[in-house]
């Protein structure tokens, strides 16, 4: 997988570079939006990490420029700014995901993988399937091994996200972002509680456990083994 990192802070850039290289990715690092836009439009990447505050040009404008010049590569925007509307503004500018510094590398990695899987301009599938679980987005039904399961809306959405990223880590923050849309971090175990409810419905009655906890980070849905 090829990743472009546009980040002017050398320490953060090398932190991301080192981590991704260890994961076996090819990483290019640019220090300014100008170089970044140039690199992004002349090479093909699977995903771009874009810092929000860059010398020369606001990252938000840079993303707009990229989108305007038909670059459809998924973009993850990084920011030290954390206003309530910044996230929405970033997504409106054309970024696909938004993350606030400081961040854990696991979180970045999980999000990048989720983004890279999402092929640009491909319509979302209606039916998701893994390990005997079938989720129909249109009918809003979930069937495991021929048994229809009654899920609450939140549980359905969590399962949807886990299925779309099967075999990959989905962090708690990602779930909080995508299922609840909360831009703040609740003190309580909101995500854990709902995931465990989901588990009692989808895993407990069956032999094999599909949803696994990745300690300290999040969850993973594994169909194989």
């Amino acid at each position, binding site marked *: 997988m090829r990743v472009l990192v546009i980040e002017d802070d050398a320490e953060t850039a090398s932190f991301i570079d080192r981590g991704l290289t260890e994961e076996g990715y090819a990483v290019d690092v640019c220090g300014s939006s100008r170089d970044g836009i140039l690199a992004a439009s002349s090479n093909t990447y699977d995903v771009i990490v874009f810092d929000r505050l860059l010398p020369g040009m606001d990252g938000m404008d840079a993303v707009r420029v990229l989108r305007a010049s038909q670059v459809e590569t998924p973009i993850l925007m990084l920011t030290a700014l*954390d*206003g*309530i*509307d910044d996230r929405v503004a970033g997504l409106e500018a054309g970024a696909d995901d938004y993350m*606030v510094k*400081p961040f*854990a590398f696991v979180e970045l990695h999980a999000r990048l993988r989720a983004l890279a899987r999402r092929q640009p301009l491909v319509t979302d599938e209606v039916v998701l399937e893994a390990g005997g679980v079938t989720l129909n987005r249109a009918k809003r039904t979930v069937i495991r091994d021929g048994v229809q399961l009654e899920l*609450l809306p*939140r549980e359905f959405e969590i399962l949807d996200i886990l299925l779309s990223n099967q075999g990959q880590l989905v962090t708690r923050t990602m779930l909080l972002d995508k299922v*609840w*849309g*909360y*831009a*703040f*971090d*609740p*003190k*309580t*175990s*909101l995500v854990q*509680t*709902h995931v*465990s*409810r989901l588990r009692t419905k989808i895993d407990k009655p069956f032999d094999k456990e599909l949803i696994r906890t990745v300690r*300290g980070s999040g969850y993973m849905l594994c169909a194989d083994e």
Partner: protein
Amino acid sequence: MNKILKSTVFRLTLRSSLVFLLIIVCMGWLLGMSFLWELDDNTLLEQEERVQWLTEIYQEDGLHGIREEFGDPEETIWDEDHAFFMLTEEGFAVLLLSADNESLFGFPALRGMSADWTSLSFFDDEEHLEVRVLQQRFSDGASMSVGQARSDEYFFVSETMQTGFFWLCVIVLPLAIVIGLILSRKVYRRLNELVLVAEEIGHGSLDQRAPLQGKNDEFDRLASTMNAMLDRIQSLHLNLETASAGMAHDLKTPLSRLSNRMQLLQQDKDDPAALGQHLQVAQAQLHQITNTLHNLLRLSEIESGQRRERFIELDVSAVISDVLDSYEPVFTDAGRTLQVSLVPGIRMRGDADLLVQMLTNLLENSIEHGRPGGRTWVRLQGARDGCVLQVGDDGPGVPDAEQSRIFERFFRGDISRGAPGNGLGLSIVKAVCELHGGSVALLEQHTGAVFDCHFPPAA
């Protein structure tokens, strides 16, 4: 003194007195002049009548008739004495000239005088009279001049006018200066009090207040406005101080713990099990620091009021119900009961994200501080002036001494300093309520902690 002379009040008083004086003088002058003109006009009428009367006599009885009329057939030409007597007592004098311009009767000095007022001297310039002469020529070539003396009244009025104006100026001008001084000194004194207070405040003693005289005049209004402003500034200042102190404490504590942890890492670098544990703790401490900063930024963002521009009309019942659906299992897992009673369809203008954060802060507060196995309730109902959201629990509640402070930034009941959270949760609740034009209150005389959030209606 110099300050008083330069003061606005003094200059204004002086200026308005001068304008006033000018107006009075102008009006008086106009009035006097029109009176004098009227007076002259009357004497002219009198003089014309006199000319006509004498003309009639002359035409009927000739020179003889005129002499008879003045009652003295012998004396034909008047000397100065007689003429002066006639002009002052009777108000007029006469001169009759023959066809070849010889004085036949009367006062010869009238000869050649004009129909305008002319000054006539008597007794070697001792006495003066102003005399106007009208002339009448007869068919036999003779002519008659009738001289009219200006009335005493005229001189009296014009004299009075002049002295009046003179004294007016002499009295009014110094009086204006004196009044101006007195007025501006009074104003200066009141203002000076305020200036002194402002100066002291400028030098840092924020607890100074402007004195009130209880007269409810403009100075009292200024002073009380100033005092209200100062109260607000002082409370903000105090907030800032406690916030800075709280922030210093809340950041320094985890930072120093983190620093300790780093030293432990150094010490235990050969023990992988210990290393793993240290790292985990260090991560948690960093998370707490970031979280505090995040909440602090969020709080100032809310308090800045900019979010108000993004307000939309929303179904607050639906927003709250959605949050409660998510939190219900959390309460169950914590071994607590969540009782919900929402009146559906209540609408208000607001920001859904912030309302959600506000409610979760209250709910988490209740989970954290409530009694184990206890009950939490959330009620939403319409009120006369908007709606009320109540979040309460049957836990130990808030000690009386702390009730007034729980909404302050970084305030935490002292026992819970070590517990998670950063003392900003309720500050955010309060800020969100106030951003929406509402208020939040901790109900007193209640077992447990019961918070009432009032919101104004949608329209």
